């Protein structure tokens, strides 16, 4: 029973975590920017989704209410992506190449978005969504109850991974991104606009973060404006564990992190705060053994 629970719930948790970290690794892989504002876009996505579904539900009659979350799920990543690329252009683009300044500016961005959300949505600590789940109900696989929304999250996460891979491998913009990550100057020489591509990358990463936020919130049930730290720490850890800039590594890192949290929370009942610190300790140990993460680029000879 416990083993089956670990396998199935761990997989679902891992896929949501992978979705959370995907945008973070994408923007690092393409531009080398450590965009800590990723956590802010995560929270922003959750709140925009909540606000949009509240807004839309007043337009649709009761029998079409199932359209609302689907519509909101489509509009949310677009809005968050626009905000993300504007944020990138206004702040991070100005300090390109300075690692510490990038980190500080993006962290300030997190707090700015946190305060804006607080001002707009009120100072209550938790903001519960008054929307029906995207797919209400649940089903059972070998004695393990799975909520439909969670299964949907896992499926959409896999689909997004696949479509991102196709986007990078097949489309022109994707190829330009790949070129930028491989050789910045050569890509600029053949006419790739750094500014536009980086803005597109940050838009995509913010959009993916907002989708991840919607599923994460439907898993845990509540969103709060200070959730960005938790989300940031999680996605940062996953990405670092797998190696910065490696999408394969992100997936593996998410699996390790997801299973670690599931195992710790299911077996170590009563451990309380330790459940939150153990994954970090696992990560620190892995990093001491492999300093560039599991699939990161090897330390280049300087």
């Amino acid at each position, binding site marked *: 029973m416990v083993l089956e629970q670990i396998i199935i719930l761990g997989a679902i948790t891992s896929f949501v975590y992978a979705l959370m970290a995907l945008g973070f690794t994408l923007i690092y892989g393409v531009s080398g920017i450590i965009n800590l504002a990723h956590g802010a876009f995560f929270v922003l996505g959750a709140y925009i989704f909540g606000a949009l579904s509240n807004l839309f539900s007043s337009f649709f009659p009761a029998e079409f209410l199932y359209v609302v979350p689907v519509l909101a799920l489509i509009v949310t990543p677009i809005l968050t992506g626009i905000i993300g690329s504007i944020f990138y252009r206004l702040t991070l683009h100005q300090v390109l190449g300075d690692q510490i300044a990038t*980190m500080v*500016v993006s962290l*300030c961005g997190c707090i700015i978005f946190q305060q804006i959300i607080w001002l707009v949505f009120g100072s209550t600590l938790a903001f519960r969504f008054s929307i029906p789940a995207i797919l209400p109900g649940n089903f059972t696989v070998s004695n393990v109850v799975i909520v439909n929304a969670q299964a949907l999250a896992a499926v959409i996460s896999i689909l997004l991974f696949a479509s991102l891979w196709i986007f990078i491998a097949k489309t022109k913009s994707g190829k330009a991104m790949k070129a930028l990550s491989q050789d910045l100057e050569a890509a600029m020489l053949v006419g790739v606009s750094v500014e536009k591509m980086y803005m597109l990358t940050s838009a995509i990463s913010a959009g993916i973060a907002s989708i991840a936020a919607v599923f994460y919130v439907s898993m845990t049930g509540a969103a709060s404006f200070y959730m960005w730290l938790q989300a940031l720490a999680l996605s940062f850890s996953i990405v670092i564990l797998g190696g910065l800039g490696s999408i394969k590594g992100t997936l593996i890192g998410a699996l390790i992190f997801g299973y670690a949290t599931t195992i710790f929370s299911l077996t170590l009942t009563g451990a309380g*705060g330790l459940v939150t610190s153990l994954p*970090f300790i696992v990560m620190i140990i892995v990093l001491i053994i492999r300093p560039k993460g599991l699939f990161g680029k090897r330390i280049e000879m300087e």
Partner: protein
Amino acid sequence: MPVKYLRRAYRSFATHVYDVPPRMLAFLILIILSLIPLTGLSLDKLGILTSANVIAILAVSWDLLVGRSGQISMGHAIFYGAGGYGAALLFRYFGWPVWMTIPISLLISVGIAVIVGIPCLRVKGPYLALVTLALPLAATGFLFYYSDVFGGDIGIPLTRIFPLSLGYVGQFVANYYLSLSLMAISALVVYKIASSRTGVVFVSLLDDELASKACGINVTKYKLMAFAISGLFGSLAGCVQAYLSVRVTPDFLDISISLIPILVTILGGIGTIYGPLVGTYIYYLMDRYIFTQLVPVGGMASLLIFMLVVVIFVVKWPRGIGRAVVDKLEDLQEPREIEEIEEKKVKLFKRMRNALAFLIRGLRKRKEKGET
């Protein structure tokens, strides 16, 4: 022969401080800060300045580790918390007085800092930033798990440093002078370390680790040293704050404690020792006074505005405010090129001539008007 010593002290002051404009400015600011309690400032503002002094120690220690040695730490709260909890635990279990708990807690914290430094020998750059960011988060989990030792949410109570016989106002003033003197001493010591040979080696680690290794520098030793020194001053700030707030709580390991030194150092100028100090006072002035008392915009909006200001400053002046000011001051000190002086003279002359011509023209017009 006290006169002889006085004269010698004056001569060294004149050559080492008075002739160097940035040092003279720092000296003047220190004197102004030490005169502040005599001006009858209200006690809450004195409290704000006291905590600003404590945070300045933390920021200076962060600057030594990151701005000088290039080991990116985003979890300086681990040292702050180690100092605070060390002192509190020593007080709780052994009942030692202040002058014993603080030094021993500092020693323990240096040990912790060296242990924290060991992973950094292998992990670099953003990876190191994450490891250090995760450390306080992991430590907080332990604090809550062993809450019978660490006191959980409530924390551990402590005594005051100064006896109650000083009175309410006296306590505030004494705390202020204590924090101010500790801040000045730590800044001076860190400045001395940074300008000594060790400091130069730290900068070489920041610039090119491989090259400094090739020059025969023991990189391991100096990295651990940087962590130990930084941890020492970071935990000093924690100890002092623990005694000032009479209680240690898990807030000592909060993410904001890790963020404030980073923000203020970037604001003031990274890699300088005065930068974090300038940044800290600007931060406290804006956060606790301008946006809360002078122009009350509400707690939420004040943080928002402050962060916007920081972002604008970092984007416009990536090298920091403090460095811009000191660059100006050093311009005063260094003898300028003659051509440059000549150029400035010519410019000044032209400007004066233009102004004169403008004035004369204006006078003439008025005269003509008067005549008609």
